[in-house]
């Protein structure tokens, strides 16, 4: 026996160590840690290393910044000139995009869609990785002491990075989207097809569960779909680089992440996401045509158009229902300049007079009618902040005319008391109703 043990001592020792580790593996696989639970030995080990890594990273950044700051000063004049030119270009683009955004928000409000907003983020520094190709986790220098919790989204301005999987007091572990155990709800930006973005063992990312009969083109952008309840909807994920027929019924779509996951150094941890209706207060006046557009079909009431084709005062085509937008931003009642021109100060609803061009049925209690000078105008009245007493009339006439299809609805301050009551003037013929200018000039009579 002694001879046997002595002869195979090394092999027996090796087998014993391997057996112990296999048993350890089996225990871990059999009893996977619950969500949020972290093995203490891992916390100890990482916590021991994190201060060193943090110190190294921060000191290295400090030294690098000294040289960078000097380098930035050189050529700053030329860069400034280029940036100014770029700003001019971007202002032009922004004007156009603002208009698109307003339209989109208005439509969202009309349809009752809720938007997800990133309310607060925490900037964090990447201080380490797992170091191996089999696991691509990252370590950041912010933890529970900074308000970070598991399953928070980690992003960069370029795109999403991953999510928090472990949190200690002063560090957190991030599972990037190219890790083989990662999964992100994603959608193709143009075709709106939804799938799941998965990492692979080689560090690539693939969009899965897109049916083979769908058309996906390389170069198409991929965004978050919001379906995973971790990443807000619409954040950039990456671009499609190749599309191949895959196994089963699904396409094999390879995606290159927008964020440079292999060299990410600074990230933002999304600590608060709120879901709310889009803010339509700053969208400007809501046109009657917008409201009419959602009430299809719209048939003009011939009985209320006189022989000359002039619309009678108070006539309109609106139905007594309240639009979602109006209900959302309180314009359902306030936005009725020509509804009850002879009773401007009551602020009460007049459900018996639905044919006024705008809804008056669901006016919130206590809401005050808009300034009577704007009543019946064919122009617009810009919304004023609370506390203002008189909305700024920019429409065709301060005296106003009875509303017709060209009337703009006023998103007005509910607290503005009326100053005077002006009876509505005779409206121009309906077919001659001018397009609303924003000049403040009266329309030609």
């Amino acid at each position, binding site marked *: 026996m002694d001879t046997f043990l002595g002869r195979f*001592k*090394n092999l027996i*020792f*090796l087998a014993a*160590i*391997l057996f112990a*580790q*296999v048993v*350890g*593996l*089996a225990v*871990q*696989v059999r009893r996977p*840690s619950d969500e949020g639970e*972290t*093995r203490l*030995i*891992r916390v100890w*080990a*990482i916590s021991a*290393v994190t201060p*060193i*890594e943090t110190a*190294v*990273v921060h000191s290295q950044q400090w030294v690098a910044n000294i040289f960078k700051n000097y380098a930035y000063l050189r050529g700053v004049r030329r860069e400034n000139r280029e940036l100014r030119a770029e700003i001019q270009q971007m202002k032009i683009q922004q004007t156009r995009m603002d208009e698109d955004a307003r339209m989109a928000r208005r439509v969202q409000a009309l349809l009752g869609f809720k938007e997800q907003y990133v309310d607060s983020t925490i900037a964090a520094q*990447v*201080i*380490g*990785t*797992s*170091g*191996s*190709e*089999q*696991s*691509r*986790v*990252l*370590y950041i220098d912010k933890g529970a002491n900074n308000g970070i919790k598991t399953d928070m989204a980690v992003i960069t301005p370029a795109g999403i990075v991953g999510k928090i*999987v*472990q949190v200690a007091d002063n560090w957190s*572990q991030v*599972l990037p989207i190219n*890790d*083989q*155990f990662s999964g992100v709800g994603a959608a193709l930006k143009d075709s709106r097809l939804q799938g799941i973005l998965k990492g*692979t*063992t*080689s560090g690539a990312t693939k969009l899965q569960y897109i049916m083979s009969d769908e058309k996906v083109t390389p170069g198409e952008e991929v965004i978050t779909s919001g379906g995973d309840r971790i990443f807000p909807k619409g954040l950039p994920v990456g671009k499609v680089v190749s599309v191949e027929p895959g196994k089963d019924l699904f396409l094999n779509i390879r995606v290159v992440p927008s964020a440079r996951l*292999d*060299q990410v*150094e600074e990230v933002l941890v999304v600590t608060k996401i709120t879901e709310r209706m889009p803010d339509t207060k700053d969208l400007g006046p809501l046109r009657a045509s917008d409201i009419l557009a959602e009430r299809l079909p719209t048939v003009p009431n011939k009985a209320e158009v006189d022989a000359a084709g002039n619309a009678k005062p108070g006539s309109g085509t609106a139905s007594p229902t309240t639009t979602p937008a109006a209900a959302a931003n309180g314009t359902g009642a306030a936005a009725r300049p020509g509804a009850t021109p002879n009773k401007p100060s009551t602020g009460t609803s007049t459900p018996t007079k639905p044919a006024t061009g705008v809804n008056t049925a669901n006016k919130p209690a206590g809401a005050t009618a808009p300034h009577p000078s704007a009543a019946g105008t064919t122009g617009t009245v810009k919304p004023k902040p609370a506390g203002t007493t008189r909305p700024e009339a920019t429409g065709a006439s301060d005296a106003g005319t009875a509303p017709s299809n060209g009337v703009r609805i006023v998103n007005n301050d509910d607290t503005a008391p009326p100053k005077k009551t002006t009876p509505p003037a005779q409206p121009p013929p309906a077919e001659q109703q001018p397009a609303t200018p924003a000049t403040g000039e009266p329309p030609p009579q």
Partner: protein
Amino acid sequence: MSTRVMPFRGSVTSREQVSVYEFGWPAILLIPLAAILIQIFIPVKVRFMPIIDLPFLVTVFFATARRNPISGCLTGCFIGLLYDLFAGPSHPLGMYGIALTVVGYLASSLGGKIDVENPGSRFLITFGFFVIHEGVYYGVAHGLLRQSLQWSWSHTAVSAVANAILGVFLFMFLDRFKQR
């Protein structure tokens, strides 16, 4: 001088005796720790760092220098488990531990049979053991844990060459810590 000599048993070299080196405790503890620290820190700055496996190289170095299978096992187990700690939560403790234990055992056993002092043999040894290391890891992940790893010969070969080249220079540097 703590260098011992032991006769080759079944030697495939022309030398009849080979030196067995010892290391101080600070070196035994600090070199693996430094290797792991660098390994988890450098990929933040260097893009292709993950194909380099410093804990593996240190394991091979200690195992071949000490030429004792039991100490090779323990060295590999210690470094591997330490390395496992920094992997993600989906990476159970013991995967690198098992792989590096096997490498440590084989490297120390081989170190007693062939000359591992010259750069050529070091290159070949490192190359070969890296393939074994990857194979054992793949076997544990795929066979025991049912993880969906994909084996790529080309990637393994490129990584093995890169580690072997680095290993030659790293071993020359680490030779300074041998106690004579």
